């Protein structure tokens, strides 16, 4: 059947085997190593214009919505914002006073003043279609000096961190991503712990806490700043339920993130602070479990 005149190169089965092997190679290298980051970044830059084009209908709808707003809704919103502004201003004054006092105290203690981390405002381009991972894409990248590993917050609390920065966009993994660890502290009593994402739902899991641990529903968890990625003191989640079943070694604590990725389009990317000093060698401790990516 195969004739030289009609030769079409290798048969479909051979081609399939070749491409399957190539895919598997890429998969393995993506899971275990990071050789292909530049290639990925290149392709991402190439398809960025297409992504912008795909965003156009949504932006157009938003523009039409803005244009056809009624006056009464604008007046209502304005009144609300003014009230909010007053409240915020009062809070800000208190905050400034406290910050000054804090700076003074730190100088007294000879501690280095906490660096005011620079931040970049970014807009969420879209949620990723992939239901396996909870990631979002924002419109600021290397060009706006976004660095990999930077913390990402909204006005309520921590959203996640920059997983990969491309020239014009970056990929953000959420704290609700499966096995994404966030070091936290219970605001009420200073207890340190690590919350992990569940992956499937929008909830977090406070792992490895003993049965008699002092955590109650409603407790606010803030970042402890121990990992050098998230600055300390940002709200992360509130405790929803504590299940102390003596059958298990640890209590099962479910938390709900305070930041809402689904609600707003703007996020703030904080530049990473200076890395913490290395762990002393005399007491070798395994690095915090990163989990499988």
């Amino acid at each position, binding site marked *: 059947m195969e004739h030289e005149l009609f030769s079409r190169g290798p048969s479909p089965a051979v*081609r399939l085997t070749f491409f*399957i092997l190539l895919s598997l190679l890429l998969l393995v290298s993506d*899971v275990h190593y990071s050789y292909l980051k530049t290639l990925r970044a290149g392709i991402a830059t190439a398809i960025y214009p297409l992504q912008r084009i795909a*965003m156009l209908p949504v932006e157009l709808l938003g523009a039409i919505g803005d244009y056809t707003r009624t006056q009464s809704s604008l007046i209502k919103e304005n009144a609300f914002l003014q009230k909010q502004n007053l409240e915020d201003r009062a809070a800000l004054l208190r905050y400034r006073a406290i910050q000054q006092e804090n700076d003074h105290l730190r100088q007294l203690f000879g501690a280095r003043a906490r660096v005011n981390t620079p931040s970049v405002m970014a807009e969420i381009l879209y949620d990723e279609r992939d239901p*396996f991972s909870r990631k979002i894409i924002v419109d600021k990248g290397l060009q706006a000096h976004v660095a990999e590993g930077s913390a990402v917050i909204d006005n309520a609390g921590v959203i996640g961190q920059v997983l990969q920065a491309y020239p014009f966009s970056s990929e953000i993994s959420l704290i609700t991503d*499966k096995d994404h660890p966030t070091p936290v502290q219970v605001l009420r009593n200073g207890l340190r712990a690590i919350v992990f994402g569940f992956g*499937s739902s929008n909830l977090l899991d406070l792992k490895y806490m003993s049965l008699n641990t002092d955590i109650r529903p409603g407790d606010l968890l803030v970042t402890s700043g121990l990992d050098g990625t998230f600055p300390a003191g940002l709200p992360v989640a509130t405790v929803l339920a504590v299940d102390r079943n003596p059958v298990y070694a640890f209590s099962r604590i479910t938390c709900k993130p305070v930041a809402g990725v689904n609600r707003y389009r703007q996020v703030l990317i904080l530049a990473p602070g200076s890395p913490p000093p290395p762990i002393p060698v005399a007491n070798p401790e395994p690095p915090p479990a990163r989990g499988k990516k």
Partner: protein
Amino acid sequence: MEIAPKEEILLPVRPGFIALSLFSAFLLDLLPLGSFIEWIRPDFVAMLLLYWCIHQPLRVGIGTAWAFGILVDVADGTLFGEHALAYSLMAFIALVLRRRVSMLSLDHQFTHVTLILLIMQAVVVLTGFVAKDIFVGWAYFLGSLTAGLLWPGLTYLLKLPQRPKPDPDRI
């Protein structure tokens, strides 16, 4: 089994049209939609690749499918090679079954197309499960059913530019 009533005589496809249709499908996949529509949204790139593998196997084959899989992987932030693997397998199945599928009437093509797309999605789910230990739930597969339902419309649309224009000199 019923077969297509009569074979149409069509003009040859222009390669530019194939490329245009594939990139439009990619654009449709990038379109941000609400979370509800997200679940029933068909994978347009996969549909188009399937269509061209069945109808133009010499122009679109496993290699094209693999390349578009890589594009989808980067756009979606999935593992590098996840969709590439699934798409190339899908293209292979389409190449094997293409004579059979193209002979069937459109309502019988529905089952074949849906099944092939389901197999493709199963590969994606399985890769995700093995590599990242995550199962997404059964609702993920709804997209293939929508794709099957949209298939006749897609076939009609893509054949439009190949229909010969009626000859004005004919009586």
